[in-house]
């Protein structure tokens, strides 16, 4: 036991001390923060003001276009030719918007002239404004009061409620989907990332021939187990650091940006104002954040830890066996296939499972230990019957005990076998030695 601890310690420290671990640990949250912060920041940064000269031949829109912080609409007269010429002479951040003839019932020909391509946001915002103006005109000409239309805006929001022995509880399919998918995907990444680290670790010891020195002191199984657990701890440590750092960076950066933008919520500035208003309303009423509270996060996290570790243990034992059986990375490929197929299969099936989390397919995939870590995790937020969870957990435990036992047998023979191209038949033989 003492020796296993020593091995775990070495496996953990030797990886954590590596530069690549440090880089990954720092880069991970920065990337994550980047993904969440940069778009907001880009949308928020003091955009250069663009002056749009509007040559409105119909006379319907020029006065209706609303200027804002970034875009100022200026109505001009005269011929199109002249306007184009003055645009050429004008400096940067000048555009010319030409709206063709229309009486409001037909869609006018609209063009924007500018030095460089205008941003999609600007084009969308102009399109939106002109569209709603046209709609108003057309409604009026059909004898409908646009104000009435504005008033009639039904807002349907279906509340899902889970009814079971524990009573009624407000459900939330959207939040469940996000949580389930996120958790399943994390497990998928973790299995691959750290499973393959176990494999390369085993291969390194084998090709370095350190293994013979070590297993004259400890049993091969102890060495394998020590490595698997050591790497798992590296994974957990990295995961934890990522969470803390990501949270830290996002909070700090968020606070800084909030200050800069006069505490206006970022979402209002980005995108078009109509949509953001809509979104804000939703968020306030029964937004995703509120919905998330309805998902039982504590139990989800507990299950997540279980499937996270269970899935990793199940697969890393197989990765270790592959590492022991081969001499180099190329030979490893052929044995990787049967390992990767169920994991990739699970993640591919995830989108179908999530549509119908209580189907037969979902049930079986969440009970078979090779797919259950991902599939059951996707189903958990949808609160499947407890006996199914229990069955899945027991089968996962049996599963990883089974793979670890088999892997141990292959490992024991494999690490001392050099210069031999191994076949599946050979592996089968090793298991029975």
């Amino acid at each position, binding site marked *: 036991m003492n*020796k296993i601890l*020593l091995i775990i310690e070495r496996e953990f420290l030797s990886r954590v001390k590596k530069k690549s671990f440090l880089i990954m640990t720092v880069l991970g949250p920065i990337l994550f923060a980047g993904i969440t912060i940069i778009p907001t920041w880009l949308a928020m940064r003091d955009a250069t003001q663009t002056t749009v000269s509007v040559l409105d031949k119909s006379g319907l829109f020029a006065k209706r276009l609303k200027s804002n912080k970034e875009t100022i609409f200026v109505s001009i007269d005269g011929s199109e030719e002249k306007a184009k010429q003055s645009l050429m002479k004008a400096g940067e951040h000048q555009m010319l918007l030409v709206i063709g003839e229309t009486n409001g019932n037909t869609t006018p020909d609209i063009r924007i002239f500018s030095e460089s391509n205008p941003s999609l946001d600007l084009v969308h915002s102009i399109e939106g404004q002109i569209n709603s103006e046209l709609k108003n005109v057309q409604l009026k000409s059909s004898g409908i009061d646009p104000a009435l239309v504005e008033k009639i805006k039904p807002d349907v929001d279906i509340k899902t409620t889970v009814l079971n022995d524990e009573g009624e509880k407000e459900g939330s399919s959207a939040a469940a989907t996000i949580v389930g998918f996120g958790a399943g995907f994390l497990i998928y990444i973790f299995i691959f990332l750290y499973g393959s680290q176990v494999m390369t670790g085993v291969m390194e*010891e084998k090709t370095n021939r350190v293994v*013979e*020195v070590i*297993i*004259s*002191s400890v049993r091969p199984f102890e060495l394998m187990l020590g490595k698997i657990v050591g790497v798992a701890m590296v994974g957990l440590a990295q995961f934890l650091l990522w969470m803390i750092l990501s949270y830290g960076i996002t909070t700090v950066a968020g606070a800084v940006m909030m200050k800069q933008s006069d505490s206006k919520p970022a979402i209002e500035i980005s995108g078009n104002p109509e949509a953001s208003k809509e979104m804000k309303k939703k968020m306030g009423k029964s937004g995703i954040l509120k919905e998330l509270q309805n998902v039982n996060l504590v139990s989800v996290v507990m299950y997540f830890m279980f499937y996270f570790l269970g899935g990793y243990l199940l697969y890393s034992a197989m990765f270790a066996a592959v590492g022991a059986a081969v001499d180099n990375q190329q030979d490893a490929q052929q044995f990787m296939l049967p390992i990767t197929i169920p994991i990739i299969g699970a993640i591919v099936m995830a989108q179908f499972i999530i549509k119908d989390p209580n189907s037969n397919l979902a049930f079986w995939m969440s009970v078979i230990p090779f797919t259950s870590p991902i599939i059951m995790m996707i189903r958990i937020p949808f609160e499947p019957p407890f006996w199914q969870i229990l069955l899945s957990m027991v089968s996962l435990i049996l599963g990883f005990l089974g793979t670890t036992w088999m892997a141990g047998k292959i490992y024991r023979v494999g690490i001392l076998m050099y210069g031999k191209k191994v076949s599946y038949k050979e592996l089968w033989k090793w298991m029975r030695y």
Partner: protein
Amino acid sequence: MTPIIQTQNLVKRYGTYTALDQVSVSIPKGSIFGLLGPNGAGKTSLIRIITQITAPDEGTVLFDGKPLAPADVARIGYLPEERGLYKKAKVGEQLLYFAQLKGMSKAEALEKTKKWFIRLDIKDWWNKNVEELSKGMAQKVQFVATVLHEPSFIILDEPFSGFDPVNSDVIRDEILRLHDQGSTILFSTHRMDTVEELCSHVVLIDKARKVLDGSTKDIRNQFKSHRYSVETKEPINFSNFPWQPETMNVEKEEFYASSFKLVDGQSPNELVADVIQHAEILGFREEMPSFHDIFVQVVSREPETV
């Protein structure tokens, strides 16, 4: 005295291939024991069973009179032929790790490692990565790793390969010093000069079977060819000589050499007595077989079993 290692009828099979076939070896405590045999004979299989890397299919191993137990790894040091160290790990840390795996406490391991670093004059290697070391340097580190935990039984598989003559002597002296301190040494080697120089006992394994076993002295006697060489000042006149020579009067710088093979009942003294009457004797000695000759003779005489 109980032998430190006693294997009894060991059998090891890999599938249909038999690596060891009823091998019984007894290694006396305090001996320097040579384990000889051609490539693929089963030496490594035997060593791996003694070091508990693999288990035998049949037979038992006694360590100091008791069946080999997992705890015994702490008393055995093993230097495998294929040397292996973690390339990216620091020399010092790595040695501490290996010693701790053998059951030493960290403090004790640290103290012992430092002593070895001073003894072998490699103090400034402590913080080097193994990949920065030359092959010979890494070998030295590996040797330290093998003996750091002060094992009473040390297995050395080709311990001198990769060393220059100077370092080779350093390591040989260290081995002899450990032997003087009471360790039993098992050499697995193809270098017969090492065997002749160091070993008190040898076992020769060929095609999974033990074919020769005994003290080096006994084995030499067993393989004696009863050939004697005589060095004389002037050539012997063989036309008038009662003994049939194998070679006659080979002219050397200062003498003439002749050799005789004696058969049962003939004594070297009679030969000398006759030579004296014909020429002045400068030298007379029995030609002892070298282990090289014994090895070749035994291995090639074995009938092909395949």
